[in-house]
């Protein structure tokens, strides 16, 4: 299953990367599709 990922602004990318690395380590069977939604994407 695929889900959309918006990393966000500021600390967003760091904490998102951290959380997804934990999901990967736990073997969560999801695929991530990055979307451009933050400050730069408005």
């Amino acid at each position: 299953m695929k889900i959309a990922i918006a990393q966000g602004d500021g600390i967003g990318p760091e904490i998102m990367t951290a959380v997804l690395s934990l999901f990967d380590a736990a073997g969560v069977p999801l695929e991530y599709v990055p979307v451009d939604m933050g400050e730069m994407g408005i």
Partner: protein
Amino acid sequence: MTPEAQQTIESLGILFKGPMETPKGKGVKSVNVTARKTWNTYANKRVFKTLHGVETVFSKAGIPIDLTIVRENIEDTYGGIEHMLTHDVALSRRFITRPGSEQVIRYAFEMAQKKGSHRITCGHKANIMKITDGLFLEVFYEVAKEYPDLKADDVIVDDLWMKLVTRPDLFDVVVLTNLQGDIVSDLCAGLVGGLGFAPSANIGDHICIFEAVHGTAPDIMGKNIANPTALLLSGLALLRHVGLMGHAARIKNALLYTLESGARTGDFGDKNKPALNTTEFIKTIIDNLGKTPAHGARPLLEDKPITPTQYKLEKNPLIMSEELMQEKIVGADFFVESEEQPQLVADKILAGLNTKFDLVTISNRGTQVWPKGSVFTNLVNQYRCRIESKGTEPCSQEEILQLYQHMMKVFKVCSIELLNMWGEKKGYSLAQGQ
């Protein structure tokens, strides 16, 4: 948001989102608000739970917290429909609809039942807002009938907030309208240690958004020291939402174990222990996968099958309830500008008023000032004049228009609202003191 981003999210149906900057310039709406409005995520669910290792006033007192706040996410004053009626008087419109209330309340009951809650409470201010919050409360008890195993009750918001800060353990699931829910959500985040520990999910029929509600903390950006817990908790809600119950429980247990062990990022916990950076904190949780915390361990449920669905709506869905009673118009409230005393306003209206109608009451800021009132009531330059048909006989829109023409000869009419009845039920409130 780019069109590609919108298309991707709409076809996948699930968005996992980090914190976003809210633009403060005029005319630019925040991504968060746009997302809620565009995709109709009508329910905002936030779970506030005691985490061992995160010290709060309540954890020190040994009072465990496990609260779920469900907030209506579209309606209320958040439509932002506001007008200046005179240069002194602003008016905001507050929308509460039957189908909108039903969506969020039904979601709350379903969710409460699934997680085995013992109590579901409606927070409201129906003692003052008898029509709007009255409707929300009415729908709450209508839906409650379908869930006889859940204890459903209601509390007036001011009382609810006092009780939440003194005995938060008395509550389980609380459902509220938008503004009241907005305020109480952050209050509850404070009870469990702040927004860094508060996950959030915006739920709609087609698209769901899981996000951290804290800010973007630009001052520590790029330093690898931010606390990822709120985003992680939101991610776990996402996993449960798509049926990955086992994975969610395993990670949750590892997180709880990690917090119990005293591992922390710089923003919380025992300051005598060294703070971990974001990467180290996550690495610790990874190392603790498979371990069971002493408090609040999650049962390792089996994953449910995932059925991804592609959503493509051809037209707007109309949400509407059945009209059970005959509707009739029985008059109108005219909002007029005037700097004169109430009796003079009344005299002007009564002179030449169609004999089918009565001038029933005149109020100023909601308080009746005619036919009876108090000289101590301060006046602003805008009155609400209620004109009703005698014996609440039905009248036509044309007759209301004639009334308007009568009123506009003597006043600037700022706004007008029809007085509707359904059967014997009035679709309007009485003035204070009427």
